[in-house]
C-alpha cells in the first residue's frame, strides 16, 4: 500500500487515476452512443427505402407482380453506383426482383420474421447492412429488402466516427484537469486554517503556556483533533502552574518560621547565645534558599527572547559579594570589558549562577588574595580565585549536588556549583574549569552572545 505524506498529493494522485479512468469510459460511452445513433439513422433510411420500393410494386391483371422504378431510383440502385441494393422475394423464397447482377436475395428470408427487420450479411468481400419489410401486394406476401454496401458507406458518417476522438474526445481531458485544479484550490483553502493553527502551535512552549489553537475557522472534520490538543494544553498548563505554586508555597512555609526564629534570636537578651545560634540559623537558611533555587530551576524555562547585560549583572554580583569578601580579609575586582556585553538569558538566573561561583571563589581563595571577575566581549564571564584549585579527579564531582571536599567546613552546602551547572544548561552555556599557576581555579561561563 502506498503511503501518502500529504492530503494534496493523495488528492492529486487519486484524481489523476480517476481522470484516466473517466476519460477512457467517457470516450467509450460517447463512441458507442455515436455508433448507435448512426446505426439508427442508417436503419431508418433503409426502412424508408424499402417502403419506397414497395410503393412501386404493383400486381398485374394476371396476378404477377411488376416493379416500375422511376429513373432516379434506378440510378440509385444501379450496378455502377453499387452502393444501394434491393431485392423483392415472395413467400416461396423466390427472388422476384433484384438489383444484384446474380439476381439474388440480399438476406435469407424467414417466413416467421416480423414486419420490419434490420439485417446484415457478408457478400464476398463486402458487408451489406439493411432492412427487410413484409408487405402484401395484390394478395401476395412479399419481402422487400434494401441494403447498403458498407464498403461504400457515406463518407460523412465515416468522418464523424473517425474524427470523434480528434474533435470531441480530447475535450474530456482538459475538463477533468480543470476539475482537478479546482479541487486542489478548494482543498488548499480548506486547509488554510490548519496552517494558521500550526503557526500558533509553533509558539507554544514552556514559556508560553497560555496560547490555544483557534477552533472557529477549522473545518468541522478536524475540529475534534484541535479541541483535544487544546484540552491537552490546558492540562499541561495546569501542571506547570502546580509545580510553580508548590515551589512558591514551599518557600513561604519554610522561610516564615525561619524568620521568626531569626528575629527571636536577634531580640534575645543574652547576646552570646544569640550570636552562636544566629550562625546556625543563617546556615540553615542558606541551605533552604539553595534547595528552593534548585526546585525553582527544575521548573524554570528561559524565555528565548530574554537578554541580559553580562557586564552589569556581574558588576551587581561583585558589589553584592564585596562586603562579604572584605570582612574575610579578601578582595574583589572586576576586570575585562567595560561596555555592556549582551547575551541570551534571564538576568536573575545569570546573576544567581555568577553569585554562586563568586561565593565559592571567596570561600576558597586564600586570605589577602583577590577574587577576580573577568568579562569577555564574547559573552564569557570568568571567576578567578587563589585557592587550592580543583584536582583532576574532583572535576566532575564538584558539580554534583551536596558534594563537598571537606564536610567539616562550615558555610558550604555543596549545592552552589550544581546550581551553576543547571543554570548553564538552561542557557546552553558552557562551563570550563582551569587551574591557575601557582595556585587557584578559574571557572568560566560562556553564554550565547547577542550582536548589538
Amino acid at each position, binding site marked *: 500500500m502506498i503511503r501518502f505524506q500529504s492530503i494534496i498529493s493523495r488528492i492529486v494522485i487519486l484524481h489523476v487515476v480517476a481522470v484516466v479512468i473517466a476519460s477512457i469510459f467517457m470516450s467509450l460511452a460517447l463512441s458507442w452512443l455515436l455508433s448507435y445513433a448512426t446505426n439508427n439513422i442508417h436503419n431508418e433510411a433503409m426502412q424508408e427505402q424499402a417502403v419506397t420500393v414497395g410503393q412501386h410494386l404493383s400486381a398485374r391483371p394476371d396476378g404477377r407482380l411488376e416493379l416500375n422504378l422511376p429513373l432516379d431510383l434506378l440510378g440509385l440502385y444501379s450496378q455502377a453506383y453499387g452502393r444501394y441494393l434491393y431485392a423483392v422475394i415472395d413467400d416461396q423464397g423466390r427472388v422476384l426482383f433484384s438489383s444484384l447482377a446474380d439476381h439474388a436475395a440480399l438476406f435469407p428470408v424467414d417466413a416467421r420474421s416480423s414486419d420490419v427487420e434490420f439485417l446484415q450479411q457478408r457478400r464476398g468481400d463486402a458487408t451489406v447492412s439493411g432492412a427487410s419489410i413484409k408487405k402484401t401486394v395484390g394478395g401476395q406476401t412479399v419481402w422487400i429488402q434494401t441494403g447498403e454496401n458498407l464498403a461504400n458507406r457515406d463518407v460523412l458518417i465515416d468522418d464523424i466516427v473517425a474524427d470523434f476522438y480528434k474533435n470531441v474526445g480530447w475535450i474530456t481531458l482538459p475538463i477533468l484537469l480543470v476539475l482537478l485544479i479546482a479541487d486542489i484550490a478548494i482543498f488548499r483553502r480548506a486547509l488554510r486554517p490548519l496552517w494558521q493553527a500550526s503557526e500558533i502551535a509553533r509558539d507554544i512552549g514552556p514559556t508560553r503556556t497560555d496560547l490555544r489553537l483557534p477552533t472557529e475557522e477549522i473545518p468541522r472534520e478536524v475540529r475534534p483533533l484541535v479541541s483535544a490538543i487544546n484540552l491537552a494544553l490546558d492540562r499541561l498548563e495546569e501542571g506547570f502552574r502546580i509545580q510553580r505554586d508548590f*515551589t*512558591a508555597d514551599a*518557600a*513561604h512555609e519554610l*522561610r*516564615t518560621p*525561619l*524568620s*521568626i*526564629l*531569626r*528575629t*527571636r534570636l*536577634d*531580640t534575645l537578651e543574652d547576646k552570646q547565645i544569640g550570636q552562636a545560634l*544566629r550562625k546556625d*540559623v543563617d546556615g540553615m*537558611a542558606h541551605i533552604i*534558599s539553595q534547595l*528552593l533555587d534548585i526546585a*525553582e530551576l527544575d521548573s524554570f524555562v528561559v524565555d528565548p527572547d530574554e537578554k541580559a547585560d553580562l557586564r552589569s549583572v556581574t*558588576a551587581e554580583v*561583585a*558589589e*553584592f559579594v*564585596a*562586603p562579604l569578601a*572584605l*570582612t574575610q*580579609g579578601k*578582595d*574583589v*575586582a*572586576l*576586570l575585562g570589558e*567595560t561596555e555592556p556585553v549582551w547575551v541570551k538569558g*534571564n538576568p*536573575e*538566573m545569570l546573576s544567581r549562577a555568577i553569585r554562586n561561583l563568586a561565593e565559592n571563589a571567596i570561600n576558597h581563595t586564600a586570605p589577602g588574595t*583577590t577574587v577576580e*571577575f573577568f568579562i569577555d566581549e564574547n559573552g564569557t564571564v570568568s571567576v578567578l580565585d587563589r585557592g587550592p584549585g580543583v584536582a583532576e579527579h574532583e572535576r566532575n564531582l564538584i558539580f554534583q549536588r551536596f558534594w563537598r571536599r571537606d564536610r567539616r567546613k562550615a558555610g558550604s552546602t555543596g549545592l552552589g556549583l550544581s546550581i551553576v551547572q543547571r543554570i548553564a544548561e538552561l542557557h546552553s552555556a558552557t562551563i570550563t574549569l582551569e587551574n591557575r599557576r601557582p595556585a587557584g581555579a578559574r571557572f568560566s561561563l560562556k553564554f550565547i552572545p547577542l550582536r548589538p
Partner: protein
Amino acid sequence: MRLLVVEDNEELAELLAKGLRTAGYQVDVLSTVEEATSVLLTTFYAALILDLGLPDGDGLALLREIRHRNNPIPVLVLTARGGLHDRVHGLRSGADDYLVKPFALEELIARLEAQLRRPGHLLGSALRIANLEFDTRNRQASIDDQPQLLSARETAVLELLMRSKGRVVSKKQVEDHIFGHSGEVASNAIEVYVHRLRKQLSERGAKVQVHTIRGVGYLIAEEK
C-alpha cells in the same frame, strides 16, 4: 518616629515590633490589606514594612494602591519567596527596598534607616562608623567628636559612602552624586577625590578604611 508593620504572621509581627521598639521606633502592627489601606488614609507613618503574602490579598496590591494615591511613604517589602519574579514585580510596583526572609533584624533596621535618611525623609541622626561621624543636616564630618574641615567634593564623597554603609557604591553613583548627570568627567577624577579623602581620613586618625573594589566601586568600613 512611627512605623507601620503589615505582617499576617502574629509571632513574626510581634517580634519585629519588639525589635524595632528596642531600636527606638514606635510601631503599629496590622495583618490585612484592608486594615492597612484604611489606616494609611488617616495616619501618617514614617515608613511601611510590608509582607507580600497577606490573608486578604497580595501586599503588592496595597503597594500599588498607596502609590496610586501619590503617598510617598518609604516602603520596605518583606518576601518569603525571593524568586526572580517577586523581586522585579515588587520594585516595579513602587517598593523602595526589599528583604528576603529570613533576614537579620540589624539588616532590616539598617535598610530602614537608609530609606529614612533619603532627601525628604528626614532622619536627623548622624551617621557613624567607628570614631568617624557625619551629620547629614549640616554635612559636617567629625573624628573623635572633633569637627573636620574637608573640601566640598571630599565631603560629598564621604556623605555618599557613609549613607551606603556596608554596601558598595559604584563609581558611576559617585560620579552622578558629585557632578550630576550632565558634564564631562575626567576618567580618573573620582579616583583622585577618593584618594584625597582616604589620605585626609587616615592623617586625621579616623579608624575607617575606604576600600576600592577594582572595576566595581568603593566601600567604607571600620578599620581592622
